[in-house]
């Protein structure tokens, strides 16, 4: 009640104002946004299929020649339902069962149902060898 009394004492520019239709419209947008976010999160929390991260690695593009060797772009996809952190991946060039060259990379996060890209760099031309791609391990976030 004290609020109302002192509010009326203030100058005209600070008179309490009602809420216009436009403001109510924006407020409605806000309501929808919060409600949608909460509803989605709760739905996801209930429906979320559990399980470990399931990572698959594949080569993306053609081998690219760079100044200091060759680049192979790879993509890691997480088909599982939890996020993988600090994902270590490696690519090995092989010839007749012996390893010729290694390259590795670490990806900070691969969220569930998401993909992340990385490059392997070799000094030998990967086209001359068999390229073996591997996901070596990951941490739970």
């Amino acid at each position, binding site marked *: 009640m*004290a*609020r*109302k009394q*002192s*509010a009326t004492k*203030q100058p005209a*520019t*600070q*008179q*309490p*104002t*009602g*809420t216009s239709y436009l*403001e*109510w419209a*924006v*407020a*409605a*947008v*806000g*309501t929808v*946004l*919060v409600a949608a*976010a*909460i509803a*989605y*999160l*709760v739905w*996801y*929390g209930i429906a*979320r299929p559990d399980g470990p991260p399931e990572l698959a690695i594949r080569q993306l593009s053609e081998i690219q020649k760079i100044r200091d060797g060759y680049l192979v772009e790879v993509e890691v996809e997480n088909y599982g339902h939890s*996020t993988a*952190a600090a994902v270590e991946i490696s690519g090995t060039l092989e010839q007749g069962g012996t390893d010729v060259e290694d390259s590795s990379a670490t990806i*900070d*996060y691969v*969220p*569930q*149902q*998401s993909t992340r890209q990385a490059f392997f760099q070799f000094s030998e031309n990967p086209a001359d060898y068999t390229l073996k791609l591997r996901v070596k391990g990951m941490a739970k*976030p």
Partner: protein
Amino acid sequence: MLMTMEMWWLGFTVEPFRLALLLFVLVPMLTGLSRLGGFRNNLHILDDVADSLVAIAVATISAVIVLALFNLITLEMPVREVMGKIAVQMFPAAIGAILAQNQLGGGVRDKMEEVESSYWGELLILAVGALFLSLNIAPTEEVELIAYQMSVWHVVIIVVLSIALLHAIVYMVEFTGTEVRVESFLSVFVRFTVVGYAVVALVNLYLLWTFGRTDGLSLHEIMSLVAVISFPGAIGAAFARLIL
């Protein structure tokens, strides 16, 4: 917050129920803040509710635009990742929107005089001050790193120091404010400083839990974390009273 990488990561690592609860708390909290000094002088509580929903709408749309601009959300990303990244930002952005209006909008000073007469209002301001500062710090890994490096005695000292700083600032506000209250040291200390620090600590514990920072930690480690984050939190809370 939009430029903190831990916040993006939280978008897909956070426990969905905890994030939903945080958003659920948002509307009543913003309404309380708006009541204390938001967009305008409101006669009816419904107008405050409208103001906080407007703040949320503006905050969410801004967050989406900035996240898209930073290429942190794209159309190719799965819904879960995009929704998570946006939802994590809604909370700090909406508080920011209300507080910015407090600071930049006119007519705040007059209203704050009224606010200072309400004890619960002051506690809410302390809590929001702590929340706003801690939100920037709680998701980062540095909090954990600092907590692990500190011994028990470091923790004790940082708690004492936080309380002392909080009291110093509370005391300063109390006697430079428009209404000079003649209260004993003990009264101010117990009613504002101790309770204030407890509020700050609880708010921080809640935030750490929401972000999953307390999972799997021993009680001792949780307390160290809360003490570390309450150090800036307490100072933020105290200055929130001064500024807001």
